[in-house]
């Protein structure tokens, strides 16, 4: 058995400051096998791959064998030399270089040649493509090719060296049906020649169509490895989702007092035919996989990138929102997913950040900021949301994730919104702070605020959402009642 294994990883753990990303993971890949690595967002798939490709170093105690040989200190170049090639979601290609240069790039770096030999570059690229039985225009600039062709370039690049294992991270996410089929036939072809594939995807139908075995991760832990015949959709989903940390589950309300209505909202390439109603005092959850169009929908409503067609009604009145200023004026607030780049101005103080949305409230009619009004406002929010430390002049980047999120909440609650849209409200926040934020959202909804919570974390959605919209590939797949809802029911709609 052991001789048959191309790759064996045992006891792989990875700790980042404050987070255990991986705990005691194992992964075994046979020669000529198509192996699927699956798990929810944040399960640790990417981290594991980065260890395999040498981008991250695992914690002490990890054992990684390639062809039965124990490997120490895998470096990116070393992993290539062992025949492991990773094709990331964005391909990591150079759009401004030609196809030939892109394919030959790795060998160029590997040999540390200072001078570029154009003839050799061409030959290397030609040979790699020949091995794949593919033809691509070598002299064409990469950016002129379609996404599917670019992916082939990325695969061809792997063939410059003697490749044994190709890791593909979400290879089908940007491909059409037909392109997926032709990619699969290439993958099957590779398999016949004894090359192994580690395939990462969210699309279960595709995984079942092509994979021999599945390794499942959940919350950075190893759940198990299963043959294709041992699994079906339901079992796979329940293994992926599992049981997890329990949040306080709030009792779900049934409300019928529409405040905000969305009819047939469309945005090309992002979402299609979105219609829903948000009631006064309701918490509406929106979930789905990453890339399902959740954040895009929220940003369209908020006016950051307006939708192409469709209608939005607030209190029965049609709204025409084309910029964030307008939506703020209508009492709509949006807390973005990316706190560090979109939610906060990190280099500025708590005070500056909290006041940014309500500058007109703390200034006189000549537009000058009143220091007292400013201090009063900031002190109120620091107190109400219990932001620590209580230092209004502290730079936002120095605070913990939970307190940073409280600042973002403060700055939006200060605008006294009617509708609050929160995108991944507890992303990267410790458990205690998460519970606080759930409680806060619930309290606000009881005071009459209508809240949309976008989250990939299903336990969070189950804990606080009165109703749940599940999005799949840009459309609303289902609207579910929050009462007695289970993760499995949501996942079935999301996948």
């Amino acid at each position, binding site marked *: 058995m052991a001789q048959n294994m191309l790759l064996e990883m045992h006891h792989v753990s990875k700790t980042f400051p404050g987070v255990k990303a991986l705990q005691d993971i194992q992964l075994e890949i046979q020669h000529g096998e198509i192996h699927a690595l699956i798990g929810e967002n944040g399960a640790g798939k990417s981290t594991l791959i980065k260890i395999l490709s040498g981008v991250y170093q695992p914690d002490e105690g990890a054992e990684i064998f390639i062809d039965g040989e124990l490997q120490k200190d895998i470096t990116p170049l070393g992993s290539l030399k062992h025949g492991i090639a990773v094709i990331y979601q964005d391909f990591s290609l150079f759009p401004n270089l030609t196809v030939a240069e892109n394919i030959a790039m790795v060998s160029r770096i590997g040999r540390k040649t200072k001078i570029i030999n154009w003839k050799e570059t061409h030959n290397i690229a030609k040979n790699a493509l020949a091995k794949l039985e593919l033809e691509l225009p070598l002299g064409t600039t990469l950016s002129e090719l379609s996404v599917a062709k670019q992916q082939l370039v990325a695969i061809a690049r792997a063939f410059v060296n003697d490749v044994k294992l190709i890791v593909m991270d979400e290879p089908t996410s940007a491909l059409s049906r037909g392109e997926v089929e032709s990619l699969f036939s290439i993958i099957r072809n590779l398999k016949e020649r004894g090359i192994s594939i580690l395939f990462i995807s969210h699309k279960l139908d595709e995984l079942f169509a092509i994979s021999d075995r599945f390794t499942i991760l959940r919350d950075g832990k190893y759940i198990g490895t299963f043959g294709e015949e041992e699994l079906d959709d339901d079992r796979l989903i329940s293994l992926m989702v599992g049981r997890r940390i329990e949040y306080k589950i709030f009792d779900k309300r049934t409300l019928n007092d529409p405040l905000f209505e969305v009819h047939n909202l469309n945005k090309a390439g992002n979402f299609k035919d979105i219609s829903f109603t948000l009631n006064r005092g309701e918490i509406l959850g929106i979930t789905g996989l990453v890339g399902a169009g959740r954040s895009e929908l929220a940003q369209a409503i908020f006016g950051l990138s307006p939708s192409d067609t469709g209608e939005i009604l607030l209190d029965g009145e049609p709204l025409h929102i084309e910029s964030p200023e307008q939506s703020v004026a209508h009492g709509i607030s949006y807390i973005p997913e990316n706190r560090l780049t979109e*939610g*906060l*101005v990190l280099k500025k103080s708590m005070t*500056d950040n909290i*006041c940014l949305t309500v500058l*007109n409230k703390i200034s006189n009619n000549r537009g*000058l*900021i009143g220091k007292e009004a400013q201090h009063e406002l900031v002190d109120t929010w620091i107190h109400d949301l219990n932001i620590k430390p209580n230092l209004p*002049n502290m730079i936002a980047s120095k605070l913990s994730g939970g307190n940073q999120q409280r600042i973002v909440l403060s700055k939006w609650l200060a605008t006294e919104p009617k509708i609050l849209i929160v995108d991944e409200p507890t992303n990267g926040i410790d458990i205690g702070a998460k519970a606080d934020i759930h409680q806060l959202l619930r309290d606000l909804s009881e005071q009459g605020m209508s809240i949309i919570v976008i989250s990939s974390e299903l336990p969070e959605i189950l804990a606080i959402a009165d109703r749940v919209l599940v999005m799949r590939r840009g459309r609303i797949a289902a609207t579910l009642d929050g009462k007695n809802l289970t993760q499995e029911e949501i996942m079935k709609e999301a996948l």
Partner: protein
Amino acid sequence: MEQNTQQTVENEKKGLRKLFGKFHLETKELVLLWIFLGIFILMSIISPGRFLSVYNLQSMAYQFPEFGILALSMMVIIVTGGINLSITYSATLASILGAVVMVSMNKAGAPELASVLVGVFIIIVASLVTGAVNGLIVAHIGIVPMLATLGTMTLFEGISLNITKGGAISGFPNMFQWFGNSSIIGIPVPLFIFVLVIIATYFILQRSTFGAKVYMIGCNPTATRFSGINVKKTLFLLYVYSGLLTGLAGLVMASRYNSAKESYGYTYLLQSVSAAVLGGTDISGGFGKVFGTVISVLILQVISSGLNIFGVNRFITDVIMGMILILVLTINFINNKREEKALVTKKIVTA
């Protein structure tokens, strides 16, 4: 423990802030103030008779306002993370346009006051337009400020040269000299204008809601836009204000030299960047105080006048100025690195 040190640092800062609260002086600006006083006293000791002479002080007071106004027009843009390379040619284009009208009115025998008022009006309007052109290109079209203003710099220079054919325009009404060469109760009019510009810029940038937006845009335009701020409009208006300041500088220069020419003040362009950066303005945007830039202008002026008085070769003066700039920037850079490092280690400790 850590909380405590944090607290004391914060308390110390609070103390300082109370002391200089009214003017928002931070330590960076204080250091500059001391440097200025030090250099001033040093120059006075070395050459009390000449440096401290009324003549020298007066001549300095007529010289630095035009530079100072341009430095502020540069500084407000650097705060947004941009740069305005067109300031000096915007100043001279505005003054040339004003000059042409003023001179022809003067020749046609219009009353002096009328031609001066019309001339000044045109200078101001023209400078607002040059600012609006920059604002349009940077904020609305979205071209990188350095390239946009490099383009308008050449454009303004070209328009000016087409009007002047390379020469200087002169023959102003005598009354026009007032802006550059007279004084009110002993205070030179250019200095008076400069002080007004300082006060206005201080209120606009550091006290108003508009200024608050400008600083936030300079740090993170995305988060600012996500906060419901109209980033384009704010940037546009700021470029218009920067243009207005160049107009005032153009007015002072034209009056002081009693003529208008496209190349007047072109050495101020890079000196303005130096003054802003020396004054603590972060070239990547988001930070910088009016007071810091003003003190830096004074420092640069005192050094250049002082060295001139001592008979130091003009080229050596440039060498010295360059070295001072590099030294200050190096010190700032090292300080920032140290702060960052302290932050990182602290994060690891708390994690």
